[in-house]
Structures are given as structure tokens and as C-alpha cells.
């Protein structure tokens, strides 16, 4: 029974022309949402562990089938896809959004200590980030998050694949110790 739904999801996502949400998939399979979540996680794991040529990619609440990162470079040659390099400033802003999402332009500027209006706009233009809502603070600033395009470009199956920030927690803890000792 369970395998049946998983197989159905695999086939459905294969023909889908856009990422499908968990809710949509649950409804199509006529299973509860929680079960759909489980089936999708199982499918993702199976594709990964069997080392298949396709993987299940997740962004927020949406799913799509993509090619495996291992063959990405060779596929890029076939698909003649050559992306323009990102500037160090764009990469910095993108890293802040990726690790701190959802976050505002102000958050990016606070971390980087520089005006980031232009880089944010260029990332939006490249569709590596997108508006995901507004923060409930004065001015209701726009919140940004990364997109499927971001995951695809960096060969990630989901945001969980982002390598942990160097040390964040350990260093901040050490900082507190230093402050206490001083």
C-alpha cells in the first residue's frame, strides 16, 4: 500500500510541469498530509541511497524531481548551460539570505555592514531569491528566501544540505567565555 503511493508520487513528479506542494500531492493521492510527507521523505531517501540519476528536491513546502548533483557537471556540458559567475558581494548577500532566511534587506545590510540594495535586486533578477512575505514590524519590510533556482544552481536537494556555518555556535559560546573572563 505504502509503496504504491510512493511510486505514484515518483511518477506524478516526473510528469509534473512545476513543483508540487505537499498538500496537492496528498490530495491527488487521497492520503492524509502527514502520510504524504512520510512517503515523500521515503522517496527522497530511496533515490539518494540507491544512487539514482534523479533526486527529489524540496524547497519550503514544494517538491520536484531533479538530476543528481554527481552528474551535474557532465549534464551541464550536454545542456550547454553556462551561468554567469556571481560577484563576491552577490555571494555574500546570497549566503546571508540562504542561512538567515526568511530575512529582510536590512538584515543583509546589518550582517554585511554595507548597502545591499543593488545586490539584492540582482539576486531577485536572477531568481536566486524571491519575496516570501513581509515581516510584522513597522514598515512591514519584505522578507526574502532562496528559490528552487538557488537549490538547482548549487546542487542542493534541500536547504538541509547547506554546510553548517563555521563554528557559529562554538565561537559565540567562546565569546561569552572571553567576556566573562575579562
Amino acid at each position: 500500500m505504502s509503496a504504491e503511493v510512493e511510486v505514484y508520487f515518483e511518477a506524478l513528479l516526473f510528469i509534473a510541469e512545476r513543483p508540487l506542494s505537499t498538500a496537492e500531492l496528498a490530495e491527488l493521492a487521497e492520503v492524509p498530509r502527514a502520510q504524504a510527507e512520510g512517503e515523500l521523505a521515503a522517496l527522497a531517501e530511496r533515490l539518494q541511497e540507491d544512487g539514482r540519476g534523479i533526486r527529489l528536491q524540496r524547497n519550503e513546502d514544494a517538491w520536484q524531481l531533479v538530476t543528481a548533483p554527481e552528474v551535474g557537471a557532465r549534464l551541464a556540458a550536454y545542456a550547454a548551460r553556462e551561468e554567469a559567475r556571481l560577484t563576491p558581494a552577490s555571494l555574500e548577500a546570497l549566503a546571508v539570505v540562504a542561512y538567515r532566511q526568511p530575512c529582510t534587506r536590512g538584515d543583509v545590510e546589518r550582517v554585511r555592514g554595507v548597502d545591499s540594495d543593488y545586490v539584492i535586486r540582482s539576486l531577485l533578477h536572477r531568481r536566486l531569491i524571491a519575496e516570501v512575505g513581509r515581516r510584522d514590524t513597522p514598515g512591514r519590510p519584505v522578507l526574502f528566501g532562496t528559490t528552487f533556482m538557488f537549490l538547482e544552481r548549487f546542487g542542493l536537494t534541500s536547504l538541509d544540505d547547506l554546510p553548517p556555518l563555521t563554528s557559529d555556535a562554538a565561537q559565540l559560546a567562546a565569546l561569552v567565555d572571553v567576556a566573562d573572563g575579562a
Partner: protein
Amino acid sequence: MTQAEPMEPVEVGEDAVALPVGGAEFKLALPVFEGPLQLLLHLIESRELDVLTVPLAEVADAYVDHLTRHPVDTANLSEFVATAAQLIYLKSKRMLPAEPLPPLPTGSDEPDEEELRRRLLEYRALRDAARAMGEWDGMTPVMRREPRESDLPEVPAEPLPASILAEALASLAAIPEPAPPPPEIVAREITIGQQIAVLREALSRGGRIVLQAILERCGSRTERAVTFLATLELVRRRQVPAAKDELFGPIVIETLPEGSR
């Protein structure tokens, strides 16, 4: 400017730094700093100091020195200056005899070394992440299925009638060629006053005129425009009423009955 010529001492510009003057610490390629945190971190790292423990006041001089010698991006100048002020403050605190400071009121924007250090650490973590991302950017892309033909939006099935093009061309061709310019430029002045006189004259004959009929008789565009302005002027002075029944319809101007002026 060549080297053979004797030169006045000149202000050393930013390019001049690249001249090979020797010295162990000399660097050929100076990184361009976009923000104060980037610069501060560079100064700390280039001295192989530990961000966690180095008193930030120790880099204050190097920071200010860098700013005086290298112009920075004006867009972020205030950020650079604010950080400079913060560092100088931290340094001044260290130089003064230790004295217990009164506790700061909460919400004070007094420069706080720990806060600055925390920002540096956070910035460093994300800068390093950005560098790493730059390394694997596009190296192992994953791809979704290319959209099939059936996924693409449909083109309108009904072609537009070709007659639209023909009509557009015909109406273009119907526009007369502009009249050739006069052989010499004739300075001619038409004033609103003159045209008011013309309108009054016309009104005095029938007591009622159609503005478009007057405009038809005008020789030039300027004359038309001034006549129109003259009409507006008369209406504004409430000397004549103007009425129009429909959009683009005839504008009728009348003389007012004697008593109502």
C-alpha cells in the same frame, strides 16, 4: 609625466601605492573593501590575530590609517566612518586610566566592543560561507526537466486579419506631406490681444461664433494656438460664455447680453 622631469612633491594617490617600493609587508594587489567589517576583518586576519581575543582598539590605528590612504566607496562612507569612530572610542577608553564606568542605560548606542566583535564573527562566518559557495557555484548543478512543448503557453490560434496592416499603412499615407518651409524666416508675432480683437470683431457681426470655424481660417499652427488661448482668456475674464455639447463637438462662443457684463 615622465620620470626624467624634476617633479614637485605630489599628493600620493591610490594608484601610486602600487609602485614597487620594497618592504616585507608590501602587497601588490590591494583588495578593495566594500564595507567596514570586511576591512576590519582583513586587518585582523592579515596580522594573524584572533578575532575572539584581539582588543579591537589595537587595530584602530591601522583602520584609520587605511581610510586616510585609500579612498573608499562613497556609498558606504558613513559606515566606514561610524566604525572608525567606534574603534577610536574603544582605543581612548583603553588609554585612559582604568576607572569603573557607570553602567550604561539600556538601549544606549554607546559603542560596545562585544557587540562589534559579535558582528565581526557573524560577518566572518557568512563571508566564509559565501566564499565556499563561490567555489561550488554551478559545479554540480541539478536540473529539472525541460518544459515540454505542451507545457508552454499557447499562441493565440486566431491570426490577426492582414487588413489591419493595410489600413494602418493607408492611414499613414493619407497624412499630407508637411508644407515646404518658406524661403526665408519671417518673424511674425501674433499676440493674444490681437486675436481677442479678431474674436470680438467676429462676434460683433453675428453675436455667435463656432471656434473651430475661426481656427480653420488661421494660417499657422501658432496662430491657431494663440487664437485658442485668446478664447480661453475671454472665457476666464467672463466676457463670453463658451459651450460644447459633445466630445470634439463644435465650441460655440456667444456675446453676453449687455446687462450681465
